[in-house]
């Protein structure tokens, strides 16, 4: 039997699921993918450069001009200031919104009674875009970091709420039955030892989507004058400094990339059983 199991084990051993995601697993170990990616980027820059020759700088600056502006902003310290401010909105907004969203999603998906009670409220609040709440942000928190964080938290909340809700609804009834026969007793025990672990793949996908979405909301949340990358972008575009706009968009992209790659690394560790 030992040989038999060994054979079966090998036969069914994990097919190494390669990471087909765009940004997450930059295919560093696959030179072909790396070359293709690099050539795509170069072709894009070339086209951009050619297009910029036909347009004034306030419509489309050249890639080189953007690069110069990027270095200037970085060297002057303006970029770092904006970055720190934005991170001060992004981190609390994302953390609070994600935690509340996952918590509410799990609770409402698990408890029919809670779901029934809150369903009308959820229907009414769900379609409200976070930006529509700027008035509340100012009234409740003021034009400051907390106000911007509030807007970001609202965005993070809904993404995570729906991801967690769907994930928990998708947990198989049979798995819960197995838990019951093995002595899992009560809602909290069930949620902690079966529901959350089983729902974790989808929950973490929701968190990851939320992380990206929150960077977008940083721009929007700073619309009412709180310092940060968003405000730099808005001011620059009001002054037709398109090269600066693009330079700060690049900052956002890079931040997103760093956060996303880091989160995916965490996700892979937590979900090692799925590999």
């Amino acid at each position, binding site marked *: 039997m030992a040989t038999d199991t060994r054979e*079966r084990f090998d036969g*069914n051993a994990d097919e190494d699921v390669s990471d087909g995601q765009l940004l997450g697993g930059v295919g560093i170990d696959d030179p072909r993918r790396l070359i293709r990616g690099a050539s795509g980027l170069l072709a894009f820059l070339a086209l951009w450069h050619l297009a910029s020759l036909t347009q004034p700088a306030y419509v489309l600056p050249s890639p080189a001009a953007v690069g110069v502006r990027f270095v200037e902003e970085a060297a002057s310290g303006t970029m770092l200031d904006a970055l720190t401010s934005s991170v001060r909105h992004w981190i609390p907004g994302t953390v609070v919104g994600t935690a509340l969203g996952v918590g509410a999603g799990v609770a409402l998906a698990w408890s029919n009674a809670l779901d029934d009670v809150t369903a009308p409220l959820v229907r009414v609040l769900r379609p409200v875009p976070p930006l529509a709440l700027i008035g509340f942000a100012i009234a409740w928190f003021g034009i400051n970091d907390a106000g911007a964080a509030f807007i970001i938290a609202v965005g993070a909340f809904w993404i995570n709420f729906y991801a967690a809700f769907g994930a928990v609804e998708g947990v198989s009834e049979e798995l819960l039955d*197995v838990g019951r026969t093995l002595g899992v007793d009560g809602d909290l025990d069930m949620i902690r030892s079966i529901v959350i672990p089983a729902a974790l793949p989808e929950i973490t996908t929701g968190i990851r989507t939320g992380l990206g979405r929150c960077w977008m909301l940083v721009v929007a949340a700073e619309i009412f004058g709180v310092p940060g990358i968003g405000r730099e972008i808005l001011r620059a575009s009001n002054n037709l400094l398109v090269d600066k706009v693009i330079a700060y968009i690049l900052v956002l992209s890079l931040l997103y990339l760093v956060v996303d790659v880091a989160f995916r690394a965490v996700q892979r560790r937590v979900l090692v059983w799925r590999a």
Partner: protein
Amino acid sequence: MAGVNDSPVTDRDGADADAHTTSEVVVDGVGKTYSGESDPVRALEDVSFAVDSGEFVCLVGPSGCGKTTLFRVVAGLTEATDGTVRLGGTPVTGPTTDMGVVFQEYHLFPWLTVEENVGFGLERSGYPAADRGRRVDEMLALVGLSEFRDAYPKSLSGGMKQRVAIARALAVDPALLLMDEPFGAVDAQTREMLQRELLDVWASTGKTVCFVTHDVAEAVTLADRIVVMAADPGRVKSIVDVDVDRPRERDDPAFGDHVARVREMIGAAP
């Protein structure tokens, strides 16, 4: 686990002196009606039988005879409309760790390793903390998976998953091992191997086993007695003693006779 090929009956240890004087499981007048939106469906009608301590009983019947409903009622996962199920004299009112339950589709916890799956119920069933590690080792050895303790279920074959599920169910040392078509999802060759292994496990642990299957040959291979069910509504048609010496060979005429008899009762084609 290899080498335990003697007759299971003689192998069972005599720890329970009064084992054969008490019925471990008593199913008494169990009925189940599903009241849906339209017509209520009578899934089970007055089902009664008993399983002695240490006995291996199979439930067979055509599809729609309520086997799985009965399994769920015995497991305490579904409430009966009428009648009671008693385990060791105590009415079953809900799931209990006194029963080890094995499902057809294994339902291992994919986020836990083999070792963690097997150990899952130990803490909750009040198994002494100091003995838990040893107990898991023992169970893994019993099903021959000691070297896969750190593997995740995803990397296991169907047969191995079901071995883990059996080890997980047995780890809490239940009075009854209750199984619902546990070998229905694996290929024929693996199924025969698992059947032999289950008999070995039964022999070495002396557990009472209640095993639901639609496969008559499987029931005759495994059971001391077979509860034959009929459909519409699900009920007990007959209870058949399997008087064939173990280990049972399929080409033994007595084996064939039993299979034919049970099939005839069910009304399945021979």
